[in-house]
């Protein structure tokens, strides 16, 4: 593993720490890495001695929690484990609460470690290559209690497999490891979702009212729906991107697609397209709002089509 990959993965597990603490951890490892290289180790050797990023993140947090005293984990917390009996081509995580991590690993089976706390019970069902991890309903007044018994749900997917993945996050934090999925559908009702570099055939991302941050998506067809909340994607590579911004804020960069379609009802869309203005046919309709780009068409290879009703759209280009 390259150091930069190791570091990025570590960072993805540290999203619940504050900025300051996260920087401290990262600069600590950056220094350790540099010192190891100075001592004559290769990149591979230096990184392998750090161990898996997930374990490093866990150690950082375990200690942070026991320092706080009050945030100590309750003693009755227990976890269940699950191991798929065969290959899995479809994975569904529904109604997740608390902290959820989806990682790719070197093993050959889909496995899961899930909390069993009475309040935070997950149920895992497996049938015909489909694994469903569902969370039983929690009443709103129980949420405070849920926070107290919060335990991590960890799902491990073999690196080699490409399962379809449907994830529905109700609250809490979800970290989706970068990797290759089949069809990917993510619905974030609330809470925060952080994802690494996702490669998949088709992807549909719906943000109802959460905070979504995705490093990059490589897929054939991407559809994004931002109903409220904030959404940011660092890089999109594919043939078609459909972006529907009903309200809220979306910041989408590095869009390298043949066809981009956007509909902005309210809210704000910041779009950064790969290439130059001259590479695109532009078909933009603004009804009661502003957009910084004028329509033009002459049969170019790439196109952007947008309808902006009440919101704002700003488009810029990068080479």
């Amino acid at each position, binding site marked *: 593993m390259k150091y930069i990959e190791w570091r990025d993965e570590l960072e993805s597990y540290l999203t619940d720490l504050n900025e300051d603490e996260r920087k401290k951890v990262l600069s*600590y490892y950056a220094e350790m890495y540099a010192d190891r290289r100075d001592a004559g180790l290769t990149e591979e050797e230096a990184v392998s*001695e*750090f*161990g898996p990023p997930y374990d490093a993140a866990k*150690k950082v947090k*375990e200690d942070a929690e026991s320092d706080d005293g009050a945030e100590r984990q309750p003693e009755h917390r227990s976890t269940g484990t699950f191991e798929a009996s065969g290959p899995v081509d479809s994975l569904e995580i529904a109604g997740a609460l608390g902290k959820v991590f989806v990682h790719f690993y070197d093993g050959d089976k889909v496995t899961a470690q899930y909390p069993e706390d009475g309040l935070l019970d997950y149920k895992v069902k497996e049938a015909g290559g489909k694994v469903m991890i569902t969370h039983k309903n929690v009443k709103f007044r129980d949420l405070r209690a849920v926070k107290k018994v919060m335990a991590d749900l960890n799902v491990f997917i073999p690196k080699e497999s490409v399962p379809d993945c449907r994830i529905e996050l109700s609250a809490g934090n979800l970290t989706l490891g970068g990797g290759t999925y089949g069809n990917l559908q993510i619905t974030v009702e609330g809470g925060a979702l952080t994802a690494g570099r996702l490669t998949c055939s088709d992807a549909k991302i719906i943000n109802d009212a959460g905070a979504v941050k995705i490093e990059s998506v490589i897929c054939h067809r991407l559809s994004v729906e931002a109903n409220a909340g904030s959404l940011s994607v660092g890089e999109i590579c594919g043939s078609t991107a459909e972006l529907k911004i009903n309200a809220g804020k979306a910041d989408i960069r590095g869009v390298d697609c043949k066809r981009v379609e956007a509909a902005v009802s309210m809210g704000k869309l910041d779009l950064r397209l790969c290439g130059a203005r001259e590479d695109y046919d532009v078909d933009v309709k603004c009804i009661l709002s502003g957009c910084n780009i004028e329509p033009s068409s002459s049969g170019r290879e790439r196109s952007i089509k947008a309808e902006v009703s009440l919101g704002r759209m700003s488009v810029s280009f990068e080479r």
Partner: protein
Amino acid sequence: MDTQLKKGLLDVCVLSALADGESYGYKIISDLKGMIDISESTLYPILRRLENTGALETFTRQHGGRLRRYYLLTAVGRERLSAYKKDLEEMVSIYKKLFEGAK
């Protein structure tokens, strides 16, 4: 080794690695090698805890074109180290009596 026991011992090891003056992460680990196995991921929370409880302070200094973080014992840290030493001596003498007395 019992984890609780090891945790306390690791604190002493790190404090003593700083007893002769400031040091930095990689050097602390190298100095302790052969005595006790300590990895980067284990060291980080220890340094953080010692810093948060005022046993050590940190500063950065240029080293070969990059910044390196140095750790330095405070008066609190020195006090804690000598308290640990006293505790250990006491413990050793108890063990000695226990096991040598049994012979």
